[in-house]
């Protein structure tokens, strides 16, 4: 696929020359806003027509609003928005005396009858007794001549020998190659398109989120030495089925026990500290005056007691984006985009172009996700750009190949019958002996037709026109390789027994035996 970007001043001739000058068979024609081409819808029609003649596919692209209207109209998508010709013209409802039943083109001009009447009146002085019979006679005579000249039709039925012909051959369609009968290659080309699609899916990953419980403790030092605890030192509450760990939020110094005059009585040193639960969840919420063990110390050395409730702990389950979600959505969207790309390529096919089914290959060009893996979200959306290439060939190229391929088996003065011609194409697919890609594909082509004598119907019509019946029969009987024939001229009108000069009134029917 090649892109031609036009200038606003490029006219229809310059545009067609640019299309001619490129070798690529598939062209994206970028037409700028306010291009000269949009001044007349026929410009686009002519470009399309010439491209078809060159067996090239054109994809019109523009940002011009009016231009898009014309392109849609050309492609037959928007035609329904346009009112039609005269027959669809609406006329306001009648208010007064005149009604307008319909609007149409003028038909037969009957002015000559008035002239004829006037001439007769002048010549015969208005004598009705002469004028009327003479007029009737003239009308009858004119009708007879008209009938003789315009009504008879000639028909010839020619019965010919025919032989069925069936040939099947494996052919390789190859992009950018030349058609080669010897190596059984047909010239193909790659038609490309880019699809951008978006898909949104529910996420499947989960995670627990919440708050850690917090609170205050009083730590009692029962030893005779001061104890320094560091931020992050662990305290454990052992009063539940599972031990609950908490950590100090700051460094804390707990003074040593103070001795009193009574050796039995010692006053433990104490200090207040703040703790945070090791994990989230309400299970870490504990009541006032609960005892915690300080890690690394015996209860007899150091102990902590909650000073008020340890609270605020909570947890819940939320949905998150899992890696699997990204993989799944990407694969699903690629499948949809591939289908869409194949349809798009089919829509882009020019007249006579055929897509090798299954040859469309896609590649992800860009992916844009709305969330990353582990992001909290119920939904994940993906916008994916997919480029696709499909292998195409021209129907005419295939037919030329076949004609050339079978020409050696056709006897002289015989041709392949076009009427009964049937060409079947089967894509062989990917196997050990065949390939199917966007660049190359093996196809099985089967031709079914008949070999018939080479009879040019137009030539026979031209030979027959204006000839007498006997001459016509001589002409038909002299045609080579025919079995039998019939010739008729109907209806038979006296004085008009020749084959009509209007070839539209000569019918040639070739019948195979």
């Amino acid at each position, binding site marked *: 696929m090649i892109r031609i970007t036009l200038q606003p001043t490029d006219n*229809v001739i310059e545009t067609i020359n640019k299309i001619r000058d490129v070798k690529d068979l598939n062209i994206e024609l970028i037409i700028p806003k306010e291009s000269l081409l949009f001044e007349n819808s026929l410009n686009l029609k002519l470009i399309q027509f010439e491209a078809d003649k060159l067996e090239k596919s054109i994809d019109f692209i523009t940002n011009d609003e009016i231009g898009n209207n014309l392109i849609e109209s050309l492609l037959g998508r928007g035609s329904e928005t*346009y009112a039609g010709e005269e027959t669809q013209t609406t006329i306001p409802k009648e208010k007064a005396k005149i009604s307008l039943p319909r609007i149409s083109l003028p038909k037969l001009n009957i002015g000559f009858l008035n002239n004829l009447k006037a001439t007769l009146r002048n010549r015969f002085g208005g004598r009705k007794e002469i004028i009327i019979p003479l007029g009737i006679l003239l009308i009858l005579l004119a009708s007879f001549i008209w009938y003789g000249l315009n009504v008879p039709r000639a028909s010839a039925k020619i019965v010919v020998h025919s032989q069925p012909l069936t040939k099947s051959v494996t052919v390789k369609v190859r992009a950018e190659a030349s058609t080669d009968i010897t190596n059984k290659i047909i010239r193909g080309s790659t038609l490309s398109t880019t699809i951008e699609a978006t898909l949104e899916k529910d996420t499947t990953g989960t995670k627990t989120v919440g708050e850690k419980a917090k609170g205050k403790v009083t730590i009692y030092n029962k030893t005779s030495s001061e104890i320094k605890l560091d931020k992050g030192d662990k305290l454990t509450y052992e009063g539940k089925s599972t031990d609950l760990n908490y950590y100090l939020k700051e460094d804390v110094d707990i003074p040593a026990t103070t001795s009193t005059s009574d050796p039995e009585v010692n006053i433990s040193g104490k200090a207040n500290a703040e703790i945070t639960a090791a994990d989230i969840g309400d299970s870490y919420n504990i009541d006032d005056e609960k005892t915690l063990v300080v890690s690394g110390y015996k209860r007899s050395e150091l102990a902590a007691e909650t000073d008020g409730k340890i609270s605020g702990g909570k947890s819940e389950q939320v949905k998150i984006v899992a890696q699997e979600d990204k993989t799944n959505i990407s694969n699903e969207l690629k499948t949809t985009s591939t289908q869409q790309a194949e349809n798009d390529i089919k829509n882009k096919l020019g007249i006579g172009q055929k897509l090798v089914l299954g040859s469309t290959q896609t590649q992800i060009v860009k992916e844009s996700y709305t969330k990353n893996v582990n992001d909290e979200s119920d939904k994940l959306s993906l916008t994916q750009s997919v480029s696709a290439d499909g292998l195409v060939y021209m129907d005419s190229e295939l037919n030329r190949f076949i004609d050339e391929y079978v020409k050696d088996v056709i006897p002289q003065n015989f041709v392949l019958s076009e009427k009964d011609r049937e060409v079947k194409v089967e894509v062989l697919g990917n196997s050990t002996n065949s390939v199917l890609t966007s660049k190359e594909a093996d196809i099985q082509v089967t031709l079914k037709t008949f070999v018939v004598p080479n009879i040019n119907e137009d030539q026979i019509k031209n030979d027959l026109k204006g000839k007498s019946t006997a001459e016509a029969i001589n002409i038909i009987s002299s045609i080579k390789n025919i079995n039998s024939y019939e010739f008729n001229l109907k209806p038979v009108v006296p004085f008009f027994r020749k084959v009509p000069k209007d070839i539209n009134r000569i019918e040639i029917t070739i019948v195979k035996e």
Partner: protein
Amino acid sequence: MFNLPFLEKADTDINKFLSLNINAKDIRCLAFYFDGESFKIIGSGKKDVPEGCVRNGMIIDKDIVCEAIKEAVFKATENIEDKTKKTVVAVDGGITLGLTTTVRLKRPTTGPIKLDEVQDLYSRIMEASYIQAHNKVLQNTGDPDLELDSITTSDIYLRIDGQNVATLEGQHGEMVEAAIYNSFAPSFHVKSIQNIMKRSGLEIIALGSQMYSVVEWIKNPPRNCLDFVIINVAEDSTDIGVVFGGGIISSKTLNIGYLHFIKSVSSKMGLSLNEAESVLNMYSQNKLTSSEIPVVKSCLEDTISIWLDGLKLLFEDFSGVKTFPPKIFLSGCGIDIPDVVEAVKGESWTKTIPFKAEPEFSTLTFSDLSKVVDSTGSISTPDWLYTAAASIIYKEIMGI
């Protein structure tokens, strides 16, 4: 200063007028004197305009066009004593749309047709015609907002109970049939012409379709033809009009014309547009050497082939025409090129286009404007035909 004898009377000024043709290649002006019988060309002026100043009949650069008009008018009237400002402007086919609307109706009474009945009929025809024209313009341009102005209206025929009549009012009858031709141009273009004519010091007495004026002449002797196709290979477009019963049923335009053939020679031979035009003129007049002729021929070949394809598509676009009349008149500056005429004559038209019979082609010349006399002796080439043909519009407008 040389004065023609009939210009000496000051009171004949009413019969003097100008015909102005604004096209993509040049501005042309003819000065006419109508002596009651024939239109005498008493002066001519032409001024080339640069490429792009006028496109498909639309005026792109008003300043340049205004100056060119002044110069063309000056040249056309420099030898005239009583200079006239009254001007008939023939609007290029590329921008006009002509069609005939036919209406048949049955009256509830056979009594005399009254004026208000006629007025009502005409207003309905006009409305229907405008809708038809608007739809066609929409199909051609894709622009639903384009406003149109009627620039020419003419009765093709009026019939009561199958008999032709000159006017409807006062006539008795039950079945009334009227075919009215209307030519439309975009409103912005009409305003643009009015503005530019004012700036040029000219007074518009009529704006008319070029194709309509030529068709009116063909209906008269020596052709006396009522059913035909006219192909005008104009400066930057080719217009086709289909005429039945003397009325232009429909007209359509292809945006390829004489200038494209010049450009084709210019680009392939590496010449300027002026040089290419002179080479093409010499080629058309068979003044090139035998070695040069094939070169120019090959330069034209591709463009003519595309033009011919365009012409076929244009015919196929006449969706309202079932069969085309086989008589075809060729006109316009493009038919000076022999290859253009050969191409159109050599085509097997009946294979793809529903002609009633194999078309017969003939070329329109000045002799087809039977009542136009060139008193200057210098205006006889086909490129002046449309400017001269516009004189018939003056006759209709003035009722003379």
